[in-house]
């Protein structure tokens, strides 16, 4: 096994969660990397949908934006932006949505809007919502990919841009959110999954050579650890080779 970075481990772990044939709504950056890796390893029929309207894109190289030309030329079809949001996302046709986060809380609610100060006069103005609130609402399941740190894994997000499980069990149903919500958070340290009873994110896997205590130390809230905590297998040579080919 060659050396690999924690970011590479994160991408590989994210890619492994995708099943062949899944229809996947892909954001740019780590999600796009993971989805394109999965398509070359265990999920050759993964259907990639970018919010620019490209359905079934099969890019050779990783796009920088969600609207690079190669996404259109390799897609099964290109539809308008209203159509991708209304006919494809909102209608519940997407199996997996990938999201990033600037801040995340124990119920997997996401902030990508403002940090510090208040909304009208923020300390840091982030890009905002984009497609995320409706991806979080409507996909059958959501995978969040984010580096684990005290800055990101907070007790309470400064702004709820996209809803995970709100304040706990029953909230998604009350809010009329028809997708299943976040089913996993993949970080550079491990994997967190919502507890089936409480919806609280729980550490279920650590990456090789990472301890549960290290993950807890990078989390503001008192992170629960699953009794059957497992270790994510190391990246295979094939995974690393393909990943590095994609990102080089």
């Amino acid at each position, binding site marked *: 096994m060659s050396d690999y970075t924690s970011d590479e481990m994160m991408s590989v772990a994210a890619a492994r969660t995708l099943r062949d044939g899944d229809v996947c709504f892909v954001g740019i950056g780590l999600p796009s990397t993971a989805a394109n890796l999965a398509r070359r390893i265990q999920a050759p029929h993964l259907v990639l949908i970018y919010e620019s309207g490209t359905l079934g894109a099969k890019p050779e190289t990783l796009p*920088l*934006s969600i609207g690079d*030309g190669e996404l259109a030329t390799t897609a099964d079809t290109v539809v308008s932006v209203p159509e991708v949001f209304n006919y494809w996302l909102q209608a519940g046709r997407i199996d997996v949505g990938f999201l990033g986060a600037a801040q995340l809380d124990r119920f997997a609610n996401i902030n990508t809007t403002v940090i510090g100060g208040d909304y009208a006069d923020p300390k840091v103005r982030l890009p905002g919502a984009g497609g995320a609130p409706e991806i979080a609402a409507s996909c059958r399941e959501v995978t969040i990919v984010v580096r684990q740190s005290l800055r990101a894994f907070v007790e309470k997000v400064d702004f709820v841009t996209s809803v995970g499980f709100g304040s706990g069990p029953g909230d998604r149903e009350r809010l009329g959110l028809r997708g299943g919500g976040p089913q996993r958070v993949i970080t550079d340290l491990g994997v967190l999954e919502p507890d089936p009873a409480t919806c609280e994110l729980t550490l279920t896997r650590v990456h090789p050579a990472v301890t549960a205590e290290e993950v807890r130390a990078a989390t503001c809230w008192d992170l629960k650890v699953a009794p059957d905590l497992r270790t994510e297998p190391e990246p295979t040579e094939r995974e690393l080779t393909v990943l590095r080919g994609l990102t080089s």
Partner: protein
Amino acid sequence: MAKILSLAEGVAELINDGDAVALEGFTHLIPMAAGQEVIRQGKRDLTLIRMTPDLVYDQLIGAGCAAKLVFSWGGNPGVGSLHRFRDAVQNGWPHPLEIEEHSHAGMANRYVAGASGLPFAVLRGYSGTDLPGKTPTIKTITCPFTGEELAAVPALNPDVTVIHAQRADEAGNVQLWGITGIQKEALLAAERSLVTVEEIVPSLEPVPGGIVLPSWAVTAVATAPGGSRPSYAHGYYERDNELYKQWDAISRDRESFTAWLDSEVLRTEGTPA
């Protein structure tokens, strides 16, 4: 029927100080040259409408053209922040910027309602987020058949929409293809419209995946070759990803941005950076 104008004439005739203006193009065909012409003509107090402000609005905001921004995702795609947008929101430079913030789905449906002559659109959106508390243009509406509560957002009807397209014919019919995004809706939602094109051709050959906006639905067409760089025009030139990355350094502080603005926009005549 659309008038054929120069870009400078088009911006001068169609865009007034204080107008609500949408320069649209979802990652592809962003009307960069038109945005820089707006800067050169010193338009002020604009309400800028756009799903993804991108470099085009970072430039307009930094140049002091904007009083308000209506948007859904204000980043540099694949790179990071829009520093001029952030500086305006965080520090009020060059002057305070009012914001009206939505999601992509909300903005897209607002354009659809605008293009459809409806006062509002309905979507499954925003539920449980903090956006409705900060954005008065998000309300709820009850389905008269099922009793379900859904989100309602008002139509967007810009005074002027500007888009960039691959080409037009001499009668002013406009053709674009590749990722066609939200351009049709944004144009049809507006009172007036200006379309910059890579070229004007004698007649439009059909293209797979292409759409045509009939001349009689367009106010003016202006040629602007390369007019969406560093965005791209499918079939003409590719996205200049390096320039998107370089924008991060150019825009990061006020001095380097001002120097760029001075040398690349204000001292040029309609040539996009």
